[in-house]
């Protein structure tokens, strides 16, 4: 008998994807339905849940804006400038992709936390970083650092410098050149990078847990809220927040796909 390889391949791939992605998402949806949407909504309407959502929204926005701007600047430096140590720096900026966020959190604790390097000056300034909002910001910025940078750097290499040189010979200032020529050339890479940054910021757990402490109503984000709710057996709240995050992530993913879709260049 001939072995239907194509069919086998297809069934394996679909089965694997189903088991890993579709089943868990369906499980969450079913669980929420089971508990009743009204109950879950009521749980999410409570002040701790709302605070966690607001905090995640603020952190994601900060990550997008700050690392968006920094990503463009860093990509311009890494792609367009030649200096000693460029290769090394180019590798180091990818560190947040490979290092465990928990380890990152610990590393920052050594700097800002109790008996940390900056403990005395921070205390003198009465500025609390760990287990407070600044700690969450630092954690989120660190884990989302490379995305915009990488996407924009890739596009910068691809488009080259001729367009910018043309603008310069036509009398454009550096700012006019950036605004009128460079930015439109990198806009797709920038949009992809920002989307990935947003997705990463929404889902970050380890670093914000360690540095932020997940104090309910203070430093609890959407992800640490889910963790705490599960621990406390508040399943309705946990699954409700999980579903909300899943929906937002899927919207972000859909937007990314739409950005990547080939379309007529104009």
């Amino acid at each position, binding site marked *: 008998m001939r072995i239907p390889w194509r069919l086998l391949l297809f069934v394996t791939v679909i089965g694997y994807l189903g088991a890993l992605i579709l089943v868990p998402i369906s499980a969450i949806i079913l669980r929420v339905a089971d508990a009743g949407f009204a109950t879950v909504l009521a749980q999410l309407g409570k002040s701790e849940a709302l605070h966690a959502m607001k905090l995640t929204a603020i952190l994601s926005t900060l990550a997008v804006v700050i690392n968006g701007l920094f990503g463009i600047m860093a990509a311009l430096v890494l792609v367009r400038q030649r200096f000693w140590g460029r290769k090394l720096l180019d590798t180091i900026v990818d560190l947040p992709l490979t290092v465990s966020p928990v380890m990152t959190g610990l590393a920052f604790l050594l700097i800002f936390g109790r008996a940390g390097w900056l403990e005395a000056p921070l205390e003198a300034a009465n500025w609390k970083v760990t287990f407070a909002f600044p700690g969450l910001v630092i954690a989120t910025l660190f884990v989302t650092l490379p995305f915009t940078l990488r996407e924009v750097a890739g596009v910068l290499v691809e488009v080259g410098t*001729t*367009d910018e*040189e*043309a*603008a*310069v*010979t*036509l*009398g*454009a*200032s550096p700012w*006019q050149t950036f605004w*009128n*020529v460079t930015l*439109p*050339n990198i806009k797709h890479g920038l949009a992809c990078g920002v989307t990935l940054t947003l997705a990463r910021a929404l889902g970050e757990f380890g670093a914000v847990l360690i540095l932020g402490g997940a104090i309910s109503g203070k430093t609890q984000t959407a992800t640490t809220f889910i963790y705490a709710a599960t621990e406390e057996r508040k399943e309705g709240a946990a699954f409700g927040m999980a579903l909300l995050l899943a929906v937002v992530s899927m919207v972000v993913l859909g937007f990314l796909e739409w950005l990547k879709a080939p379309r*007529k*260049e*104009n």
Partner: protein
Amino acid sequence: MTIRIDNLTKRFGEFAAVDNVSFEIADGELVALLGPSGGGKSTILRIIAGLEDADAGYVELGGERVDHLHARLRQVGFVFQHYALFKHMTVGENIAFGLKVQGVERAEQRRRVNELLGLVGLKGLDGRFPHQLSGGQRQRVALARALAPQPRVLLLDEPFGAVDAKVREELRRWLRRLHDELHATTLFVTHDQEEAFSVADRVLIINKGRLEQQGTPLEILDEPATEFVARFVGEVNTYDTVVHGGRALVGGLDVPVLHQQDNAAIRLVIRPYDIKLFRVETEGLATANRVLPIGDRVRVEATLHGGQPIVAQFPRRSSLLRGVEVGCRLGVEITHSRAYPVVQ
């Protein structure tokens, strides 16, 4: 406006891309920088525009040194090989760009764009995007964009390199006509000798970062200063030989040689169209190997009776070709030749 460069040198690491080059271009002249790829022509152009800094030497525009001036202040129109049009802007916006960044009024921008569209023969296309245009049209837009801010000089880097042969021919004639109309001082880079000779008033030959020769197309064709130039601007026959009493022997050929010392080792360079071959029934000086009709010309490949090959070319209907066929004996006459000392 005149362009003058003085002892210009540019190194990339160990490699001298431009090696002590000096030349001058008069106001209103159309000049070609001709040479093989990678010979430093584009680097010279980029240094003049301020896109690259020279390691030594300087550039003058209109009699004033411009080394301290940033590219954006040099008022140089530059046309890039692959157009470098702004993809997200329309043709009109592309042409208006140089005026916009200098704060020219909108009405004036529009007037100038229309004027230039007429000049480059693209009236009515100002709303199109670059990807909706053909290669030739894009090149015209790039030229119009460079001309819009009324540059002091116009620099074109391999302007017709990226379009197909037929369009290239058209663009060349068009560029020449445009220049005759505008008289903008223009310097363009090409590796195509036909392009240089058919468009430019004067041609500068650049090889390995050095200026080999400058002159009118006729001067360069008929009096190539170096063997490199002779070889670069067309096919040649070359023979290594020695001068005796103002003459050199190649096989049975006896060629007069001017301006060379007695007993000097020389390389004789002869163009295929400076040779007459004709059928003889006696001994002759050569034997025909191949007779190839190429369009309006016929190429005859033969072997001299010393064993050296010789290639000649004739108009298709030339009476000299009568009876010339493979294996026949040939008489040979050299009508023009040049000798270069052999550098040991």
